[in-house]
């Protein structure tokens, strides 16, 4: 069930938060460690919090739609008194002393924290694999990757362990796993949601976002997560709307941009292209105007995304990797070390190119309300195909080709399910809007979900834990 379906039941006393949390814990116990989505499950504290929520609600102190709802945290996000490991042996003893701002906001809204979720080590990777914590299996086909880096977040929501997870997105780490696991994932505008208390990968590209079953749930989460935070120097003062207000306005009057370059070229998987094209036709048939956009410069984004992330990641890891290189997994160690000799001028060139790119995007966006593209260009590879070896990064390097575009620009960008491949793996489409206009992005996503039922199909035949 979605948050929007569960919340009224809790509010009206038809569903106890205690029963909900126990049901969530039972589902986790049923599927773990087969999926390996959770690094730590907080049974006792979650149960205690559920009891407290039940008492509050019974006493008429209902806090809103997240009250009593189970939430999982990607293990880059600080929860005071517990380890924040970043999925790495390097930070095995790193106990958070304060809560991340997003944790404080969710706690104040009555959400119940279920534990920490698996991820790519330090979020520096796209396939979702982690040689230290173990790979996360995709609930739709456990031999296949979830994508990452928010791998555990996506798997846990897709498998019905929890209705809400938080992820982070620097090159697509919310949207890629959301796409491959068949759930909704929103990367808000850069600066919209505080990064305070969240381990950095690349401070100018990092975003924190919700991962849920539906677009409406993402909107409910944004109502709690968004807002200025003096603890985050990049945090925006932009006005915070009610992100649910526009959800039901439909598609009439909206212009949807469809790029003629790059996102639908011959290298993109044919099933992915066909599903997204069909979705665009459906949106058009239901009132949206489709505008084809030529964006011949958009293929530069991949290099800019990587070219900014790499030296920022080296800067962040400089001391730790010089002192504890042996504790990093080989794949992430190599990714970071490969940036050791990037010159200062190349980093400045990348930053300058990013500004140039954002200007091109802003000009193109003048013609439309949102862009629609595939979320990822490939069908879901297997874990074996993506497993790196010394000198071989493995498959899956094409995964962030589309998502990374909108980390460069900082635009709000949302992945939702729009079909399945012949072998039963989810396909995602990406809706991207103007900066600080998450409301229109969510409006389009919700409208599409009212016309289809892809988002309502749960994975079946997930192997249970022994």
């Amino acid at each position, binding site marked *: 069930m979605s948050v929007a379906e569960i919340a009224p039941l809790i509010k009206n006393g038809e569903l106890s938060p205690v029963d909900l949390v126990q049901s969530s814990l039972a589902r986790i116990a049923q599927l773990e460690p087969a999926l390996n989505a959770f690094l730590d499950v907080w049974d006792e504290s979650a149960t205690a919090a559920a009891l407290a929520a039940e008492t509050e609600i019974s006493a008429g102190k209902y806090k809103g739609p997240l009250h009593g709802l189970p939430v999982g945290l990607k293990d880059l996000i600080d929860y005071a008194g517990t380890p924040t490991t970043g999925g790495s042996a390097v930070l095995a003893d790193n106990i958070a002393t304060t809560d991340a701002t997003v944790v404080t906001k969710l706690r104040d809204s009555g959400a119940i924290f279920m534990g920490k979720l698996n991820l790519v080590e330090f979020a520096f990777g796209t396939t979702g694999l982690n040689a230290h914590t173990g790979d996360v299996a995709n609930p739709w086909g456990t031999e296949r990757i979830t994508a990452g880096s928010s791998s555990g977040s996506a798997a846990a929501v897709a498998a019905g362990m929890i209705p809400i997870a938080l992820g982070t997105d620097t090159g697509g780490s919310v949207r890629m796993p959301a796409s491959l696991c068949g759930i909704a994932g929103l990367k808000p505008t850069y600066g919209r949601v505080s990064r305070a208390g969240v381990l950095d990968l690349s401070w100018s590209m990092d975003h924190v976002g919700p991962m849920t079953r539906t677009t409406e749930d993402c909107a409910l989460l944004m109502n709690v997560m968004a807002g200025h935070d003096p603890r985050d120097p990049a945090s925006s003062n932009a006005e915070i709307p009610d992100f649910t207000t526009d959800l039901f306005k439909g598609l009439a009057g909206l212009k949807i941009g469809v790029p003629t370059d790059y996102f639908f070229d011959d290298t993109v998987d044919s099933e992915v292209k066909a599903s997204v094209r069909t979705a665009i036709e459906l949106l058009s048939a239901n009132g949206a105007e489709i505008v084809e956009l030529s964006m011949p410069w958009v293929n530069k984004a991949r290099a800019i995304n990587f*070219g900014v992330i790499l030296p920022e990641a080296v800067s962040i890891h400089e001391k730790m990797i010089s002192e504890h290189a042996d504790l990093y997994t080989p794949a992430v160690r190599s990714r970071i070390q490969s940036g050791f000799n990037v010159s200062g001028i190349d980093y400045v060139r990348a930053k300058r190119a990013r500004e140039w790119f954002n200007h091109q995007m802003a000009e193109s966006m003048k013609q439309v309300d949102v862009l629609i593209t595939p979320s990822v260009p490939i069908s879901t590879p297997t874990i074996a195909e993506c497993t790196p070896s010394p*000198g071989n990064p493995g498959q899956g390097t094409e995964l962030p080709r589309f998502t990374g575009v909108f980390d460069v620009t900082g635009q709000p960008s949302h992945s939702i399910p729009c079909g399945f491949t012949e072998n039963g793996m989810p396909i995602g489409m990406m809706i991207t809007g103007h900066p600080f206009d998450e409301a229109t992005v969510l409006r389009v996503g919700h409208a599409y979900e009212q016309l289809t039922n892809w988002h309502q199909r749960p994975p079946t035949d997930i192997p249970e834990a022994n």
Partner: protein
Amino acid sequence: MPTTNDPQHFVDQAKQNGLVISVTDAEDLDGFLPAVDGAYAAIREIDTAGFEPAAIFVPTPSKKEAD
């Protein structure tokens, strides 16, 4: 840039940057360095001449503590 195929040279260059990497680790970078070189080569090809970035520098806000 471009990076080098000689691991010892990579190690020495990193040392000049104040960064520590073993020769063994440098040898394992073979599969990663082409992507790094390719990214920055692509960035150098972008013609940004005449383009003025919107945000050149934003001072960190500060104020005198309240008396």
